[in-house]
C-alpha cells in the first residue's frame, strides 16, 4: 500500500501555506518525496482563482481591510472563495502519474472522501451535477455548499485542494459570490448538526476517509519532520 504523509499545520497564513505547497510540489515532481496531505486552517482570507471574476468579490478592498480579511489571487482553478477559522483546508500534493492520470477522477475522489466523512457525522452530503464540491440539501430541497474544491496540476502533481466548512462563520461568505455561483448558499457541519463541532473533531474522520478512498497508508508527521525529510532528500540528491 502506498504511503501518504499527513501533516497538520494548525492555523497558518494563506501565503506561507501556498509557499510550502509550491516547495512540496517541486520536490514531488523531482521524486524527492512521496505523496503528502497538508491540513490546516487559515486566518480570514478571500482568494481569487485563475479564472475568477474580480467582481465576485463584493466587498471593497477597504471593507476587507476593515474586517481584517486578506485578499489573495491564486493559480488554482475555480472562482472566488473565502477561507477562515473553523474551515478545514486540505492540500493534497499527489502525483497522479503514479496513481491514475485523470484529474476529474481525482476531484471526484476528494468529493467522495468528504461525503463519507460527513456521513460519519450523520450528514447526507452529495455531489451537485455540473458543479464541483460537496453539497447538502436543505429541507426545502435547495442545495447548499458544505465544501469547495479547486485544484491545480503541474505535470500530474496536484496543489490546492478542498475547503470544508466545519464551524466556519458563514457570514463572511456574504463578502463574495462563492465560486461565482450566486443562487446557492453555503452551510457548515456545525449548522447542519445544530451543535458545536470543531476542526479537531472532524479532522481524524477526514484523514481516515481520505486514506480509504485513495488506498493510502497515512503516516502522520509534524511540520518539522516534514522539513527534515525535504532537506535530507535534497542533500541526498545534491550529493548523487
Amino acid at each position, binding site marked *: 500500500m502506498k504511503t501518504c504523509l499527513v501533516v497538520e499545520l494548525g492555523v497558518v497564513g494563506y501565503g506561507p501555506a501556498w509557499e510550502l505547497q509550491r516547495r512540496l510540489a517541486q520536490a514531488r515532481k523531482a521524486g524527492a518525496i512521496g505523496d503528502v496531505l497538508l491540513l490546516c486552517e487559515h486566518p480570514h482570507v478571500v482568494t481569487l482563482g485563475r479564472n475568477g471574476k*474580480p467582481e465576485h468579490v463584493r466587498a471593497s478592498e477597504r471593507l476587507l481591510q476593515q474586517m481584517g480579511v486578506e485578499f489573495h*489571487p491564486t493559480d488554482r482553478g475555480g472562482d472566488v472563495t473565502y477561507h477562515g477559522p473553523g474551515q478545514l483546508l486540505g492540500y493534497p500534493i499527489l502525483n497522479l502519474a503514479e496513481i491514475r492520470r485523470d484529474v*476529474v477522477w481525482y476531484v471526484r475522489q476528494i468529493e467522495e472522501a468528504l461525503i463519507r466523512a460527513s456521513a460519519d457525522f450523520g450528514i447526507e452530503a452529495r455531489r451537485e451535477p455540473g458543479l*464541483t464540491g460537496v453539497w447538502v440539501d436543505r429541507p426545502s430541497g435547495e442545495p447548499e455548499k458544505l465544501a469547495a474544491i479547486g485544484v491545480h*496540476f*503541474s505535470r500530474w502533481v496536484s496543489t490546492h485542494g478542498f475547503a470544508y466548512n466545519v464551524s466556519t462563520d458563514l457570514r463572511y461568505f456574504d463578502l463574495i459570490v462563492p465560486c461565482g455561483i450566486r*443562487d446557492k448558499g453555503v452551510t457548515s457541519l456545525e449548522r447542519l448538526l445544530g451543535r458545536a463541532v470543531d476542526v479537531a473533531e472532524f479532522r481524524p474522520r477526514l484523514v481516515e476517509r481520505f486514506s480509504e478512498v485513495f488506498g493510502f497508508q497515512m503516516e502522520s508527521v509534524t511540520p518539522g519532520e516534514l522539513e527534515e525529510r525535504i532537506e535530507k532528500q535534497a542533500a541526498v540528491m545534491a550529493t548523487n
Partner: protein
Amino acid sequence: MAVDVVMPQMGESIFEGTITKWLKKPGDKVERDEPLFEISTDKVDAEIPAPASGTLSEIKVTEGQTVPIKTVVALIDSDGAGAAVAAAPAPAEKPAPAPAPAAPAPEPVAAVPAPVAPARSAPAAAPAAPAEARGRIRSSPLVRKMAREQQIDLAQVRGTGAGGRISKRDIEAFVAAGGVAAAPRPATPAAAPGAPAHVALEVAVPRERLYFGRYEVEPMSVMRQRIAEHMVASKRVSAHVYSVDEADVTKIVSLRGKLKDQFEAQTGTKLTFMPFFIRAAVEALRKYPTVNASIDGTNVVLHRDINVGIAVALDWGLIVPVVKGADEKNFLGLQRAVNDLAERARTKRLKPEEVQEGTFSITNPGVFGGLMGLPVINQPNVAILGLGTIQKRPVVIDDAIAIRSMVYLTLSYDHRVVDGAIAHQFLHHIKKTLEGWAEPIL
C-alpha cells in the same frame, strides 16, 4: 522537424479543454518539459509542459478557446531552423501588438453571452471618467507586479472589476491593445446575463460613476440579494398594472375596538385588522379564480388552494410567510396563523416550507402610515393586494358629509392574465365584504 503540441487528455471523461494562458510566444525557445501553456476544465487547472525542445513556431489555438483533446494547438520546431518565424513579433522591451489571429478577448468567448436586452447596453454611451481623474487606483498586488514587469502605467489602464479595480485581464487587454487606453466597455458585468435571477445585481451606470466623495461599501446580506433578484425578476416577467379602490371600514374599526380586549382574553392572541382583509380577499379569490393563479408559459395554473402570503417587514429585510388553506380557516384560525407567522418571521424561526406555495399576497404599507402603496407582484403569483393606513376622512353619504374610517385598497396585477375589468371587480368584492362585514369573530 516540426513537433505537434496537442491538447492532452486529462482524464477518462474529459474530451475537451480550454486554453487559459500561453506561457510562451511564437519565436520563443522552449525546453522539453518546461511549462508551455495552461488549460482549464471545470475546477481543475493544469500547466502543460512542452513535448520537445526547440522553438515555438506557431500557436494554432488562442487563449480562451475550447478544443477537443488531441487537437494540435501549437507547433514546435525542434531543430531550431524555423526560429525566425515571419509572423512572430520579435520579443521587445515594449509590449508588442498581439498577432492578428490571437487578439485575446478580455474574457473567454464562451463566457460572454450577448446581453439579453439591447437597451441594457445604453450606459456604455456614457464616457468613462479619464483614468487620471479617479483618485486612487484600485488593483491587486499581482496586478501591480504585472504592471511593473511590463512597464505599464496603471493610471492608463481602465479597470473593469468591482469599484473600478484593475484586474489581470485588464492588463492583458491593455497590452493586447498595444498599450493604448482601452475604450470604455459596457458597464454590464459579463457574469451570466442569460440567467434572469441575476439581473438585479447589475450596475446601471459605469462603475466609476458610483464611487465618489466619501463612501462606505457594505455587502448585501443574502436575504437582501434574494429580495433584489426577486423584485427585478418580477418586474421583468410580469406586466404590472395597478388599480385603486377604497373601502369604508367604520364598522370593522368599531367592531375591533369593542372586542379587542375580550378577544385577547378569550383566545390568548391579539386581534388585528389583518384577518378581516384576508377573509375579504379569500372571498374575492373564490369568485375570481384567475387572480389566484400562476403563469407557466402559455398555460395559466389556476390554484385550487388559497394560500395567502403576508409580507412581514423585518429590521433586516422582508419576508412573506404564507397562510396555507386560508379559505378553510375560521376567523380565529386566520388571526392565530398571522400572529404566529409574523412572530416567527421576526425571531427567524420560520421553516422553509412556510414561505413557499403562496397563491396570492397581501402587503400592508399602511402600517407605517402610508396612504397607499403600489407593490411589486410576489412571484409566482399574479396579484398582490396593498392596504393603506386606516384613517378617518370626510365622506359624502346621501348628500351629507360624514366622518368615516376609510382605507385605500390597491391591487398590482399581471396584465398577462388579469384584465382591468376583473381587477376592479375583485377589489370591489373586497370592498363589499369589508363594508358589510357579517362574520362573527368570536
